[in-house]
């Protein structure tokens, strides 16, 4: 996939198309019922999470099953920043990334002593310990099951320093230099960070560092006998990817200042694994697509109840309607998990390589050419086309 002589023109195009597609999401998601701030924010945030995860898993092949811990720590750090320092989003994001990076350094240092499934279980164990402690014993720091929330009585030292007016009656909201970070502004904030994150990921993919990581994935033994110390490379990749997760976690808190412990549970770790594989591990835009698809299902498909179906199929005669609605109802609304499960199976059975592979096939079908050189443009195409 690395094309040495490829002029960076293509990458520039890719970034531009990607940025345009992300910023235009409110437009093109509207017909799909996906245009509302919360979902758009989730797309961007989980996109960041998945892109970061892909730097570890896609490049090095190390499957971490504990990335949710970094997401959670990012959230907690951000909410504490809101509580103690200021409602401004910037310090929250910085703290989220830093603390997640710190935790990633510790967990990575220990877990990277092992490879393969042993590594996966070590990361899983660390994350589950974090989750269980956050849920119970660490409640003074995490507020347990309910999740860490803002309170009017929080110190917010910096905010108090710079404003002398009395606090407003309600809770303050997160802001970026006066702009409230919920709703569409929050989305654009996340989107900009997503684009930056994507750009960094692209640069890593195209850098000698990225090449080394791919080398580790391909043949760790040869890497060692090539004179390369694989541990620091791995640890760096792990920390970077943990920092992406921390960024995503802090953005979750920025757009909605509540940090719950279940963000760290293994199911959350599993979700990002599924997103990445579903979209296409090791591809640039795949994880982002996977994240979008899963979040779309979770938020939109789960909302199709019988009354919605009745409306959607109201063009059918009543007798048909009576059959169609319950049957379709099995797969949407409370049955949305079933559809998701089926989707996982169908995609992995028919499209090894994930969604990106699917788009590539479609693209190749139409151009009836295909080959390595087209990879990048195909990916760019995917972005625009989705």
């Amino acid at each position: 996939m690395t094309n040495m002589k490829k002029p960076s023109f293509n990458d520039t195009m890719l970034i531009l198309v990607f940025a345009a597609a992300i910023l235009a999401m409110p437009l093109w998601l509207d017909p799909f019922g996906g245009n509302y701030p919360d979902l758009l924010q989730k797309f961007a945030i989980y996109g960041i999470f998945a892109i970061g995860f892909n730097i570890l898993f896609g490049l090095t092949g190390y499957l971490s099953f504990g990335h949710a811990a970094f997401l959670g720590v990012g959230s907690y750090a951000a909410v504490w920043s809101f509580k103690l320092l200021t409602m401004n989003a910037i310090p929250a994001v910085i703290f989220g990334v830093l603390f997640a990076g710190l935790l990633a350094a510790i967990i990575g240092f220990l877990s990277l002593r092992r490879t393969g499934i042993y590594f996966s279980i070590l990361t899983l164990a660390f994350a589950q310990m974090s989750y269980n402690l956050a849920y119970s014993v660490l409640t003074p720091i995490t507020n347990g099951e309910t999740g860490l929330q803002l309170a009017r009585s929080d110190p917010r030292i910096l905010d108090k320093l710079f404003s002398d007016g009395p606090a407003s009656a309600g809770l303050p909201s997160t802001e970026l230099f006066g702009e409230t970070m919920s709703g569409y502004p929050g989305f654009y904030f996340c989107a900009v960070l997503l684009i930056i994150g994507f750009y960094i990921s692209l640069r890593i993919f195209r850098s000698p560092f990225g090449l080394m990581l791919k080398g580790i994935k391909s043949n760790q033994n040869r890497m060692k006998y090539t004179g390369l110390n694989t541990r620091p490379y791995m640890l760096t990749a792990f920390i970077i990817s943990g920092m992406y997760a921390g960024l995503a976690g802090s953005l979750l808190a920025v757009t909605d200042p509540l940090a719950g412990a279940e963000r760290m549970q293994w199911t959350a770790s599993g979700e990002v694994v599924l997103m990445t594989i579903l979209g296409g591990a090791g591809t640039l835009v795949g994880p982002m697509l996977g994240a979008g698809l899963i979040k779309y299902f979770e938020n939109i498909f789960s909302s199709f109840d019988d009354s919605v179906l009745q409306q959607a199929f109201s063009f059918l005669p009543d007798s048909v309607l009576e059959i169609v609605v319950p049957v379709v109802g099995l797969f949407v609304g409370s049955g949305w998990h079933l559809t998701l499960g089926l989707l996982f199976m169908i995609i992995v059975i028919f499209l090894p390589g994930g969604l990106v592979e699917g788009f590539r096939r479609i693209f190749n079908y139409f151009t009836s050419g295909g080959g390595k050189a087209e990879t990048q443009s195909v990916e760019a195409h995917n972005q625009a086309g989705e």
Partner: protein
Amino acid sequence: MGDLVLHLDNINKSFGGLSALSDVNLHVEEGTTHAIIGPNGAGKSTLLNVCIGRLKPDTGKVTFAGEVLTGREPHEITQLGVARVFQTPEIFQEMTLLENVMIPAFSHRDGAFRLNANKLLSKQGEIRDEAEHILEDVGLKDMMLTEAGSLSRGDKRRLELGMCLILRPRLLLLDEPTAGMARHDTNQTIELLKKIKSRGMTKVIIEHDMHVVFSLADKVSVLARGQIIAGGDPQSVREDPKVKEAYLGGAH
């Protein structure tokens, strides 16, 4: 010839009571090609693995150019100038030949770890030129953008050799470089090894094929049942009755 550069002193290694190497002493001169021969199960591969740090000997030590190799990490040993070609080629199957060779090129230029995350691969002109040059040397330049996994076994071996050569090692360890090759490929490999001989690096070769040994080696040591039973220039080893008895006599 030159000074002794590789020393194996009193190496003992046993696996669960079974002695694989007993009291092996071996000294290799700089710039020579030293072949280690011996019947199957004589401990040749074990010896090589001890040299490269993959196995830790029970006693004894390996010294290379004044540095003790025993107990060091593989990447440290490699950075000291020791490279190895494996019996089954260890290459990056999913990557292009060019990438396969570029990775060791970075290792040679930047050492065991340098992040380089802010650089673009496409801007690494000199590394690429070097890689292409090496690929030309081993005769694979035409295929440099194909995936390494699709190569024939002989080509894979040559690729691996190229990956080692770009490291500019002082010592190259080769584990049966022609094993499982057709005669044509074997000859090509011999030619290649002869060509690189002129570069003045020290080589230790483990080999079954006597044709290869006698075309390349300056010195030969014979290993049988974990012990060195004979050594010297090829001609004298060939005529050593002990060797004939233990190895050549039995085999031919």
